[in-house]
């Protein structure tokens, strides 16, 4: 990396402050004032609104394969979702997905 140490520390410092302010934003500013019902209704969907969109490109176009769709990773993603949906158990889904990934990587190699 061609970057001065001082510049890298600057990035770490600003990223830390910025990330904290994002996390603190509503908790810090709004405090215990009531949020209106329509806001709460939207906020209920935060996790299912953010994470699927974050994951989808990583599943379809993994950086590790140079952005090329990889059947092993696709299969692992599908297994993780299926196990998680039916078992409602996060750890079981992770372990099942990981196992599927390793078996599929070995199978397709």
């Amino acid at each position, binding site marked *: 990396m061609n970057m001065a140490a001082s510049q890298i520390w600057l990035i770490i410092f600003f*990223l830390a402050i910025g990330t904290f302010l994002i996390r603190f934003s509503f908790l810090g500013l709004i405090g215990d004032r009531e949020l209106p019902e329509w806001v709460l209704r939207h906020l209920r969907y935060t*996790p299912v609104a*953010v994470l699927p969109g974050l994951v989808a490109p990583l599943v379809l176009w993994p950086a590790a394969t140079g952005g090329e769709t990889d059947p092993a990773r696709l299969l692992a993603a599908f297994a993780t979702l299926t196990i*998680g949906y039916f078992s409602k158990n996060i750890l079981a*889904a992770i372990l099942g997905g990981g196992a599927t990934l390793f078996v599929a990587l070995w199978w397709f190699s």
Partner: protein
Amino acid sequence: MATSNPKSIYLRGIFDGAPFVLVVVPFSLLFGVVATEAGLPMAQVMGFSILVIAGAAQFTAVQLMSDQAPLMIILATSLAVNLRMAMYSASMTPHLGGAKLWQRALVAYLLVDQSYLMAISHYEKHPKISLSAKLWYFFGVITPVAPAWYISSYIGALVGTAIPPEYALDFGLPITFLAMIAPSLRTVAHIAAALTSVIVALALAWMPYGTGLLVAALAAMIVGAEYERRSERRRA
């Protein structure tokens, strides 16, 4: 209720947070490895993991630093990746907004995907528990997770390039996130929101600096909320 004193609630949190150790360890290990490969010394690797404590943003920053991107672009992009946490913060506010300022600041520093998801689903399942019970539970969940995050980055930086790419550690993050999403697809509204998020995010993947994801998330929240509102009206 058996879990009404602070100590047992805190222990319950630790118990519920413990499985996430298996999740953050490979992810954080990988960060240590990748950052070291990119040329960062140990102190800076740990600076990222302790001060920023946000995996996706840390990876983004290191990637852009290797690409020699300008400072402002590195910061703007990495922070955009973290903007979802503003939504986490907003969704925690009805539950923890009444806490003292220093407690809210500490919650904010420790508000990561895992602690948020675990806490919010606990609060939704037990809406009547007190503010202090909610705080104890949150700090319980993060107690095993945060140290695992710090220590694994340290180990990752130590072993550096010794882990071969065949182990596909890169896919730890998507699997983790999928495993967290699947059980929360409880209603048709949740499924509709998730599908919207996927479709819009893929369609807008060309937009720079993670801004497409923000649009997708907003659209998905609207779809979920609107679906919920209409199905309630139909029932009424």
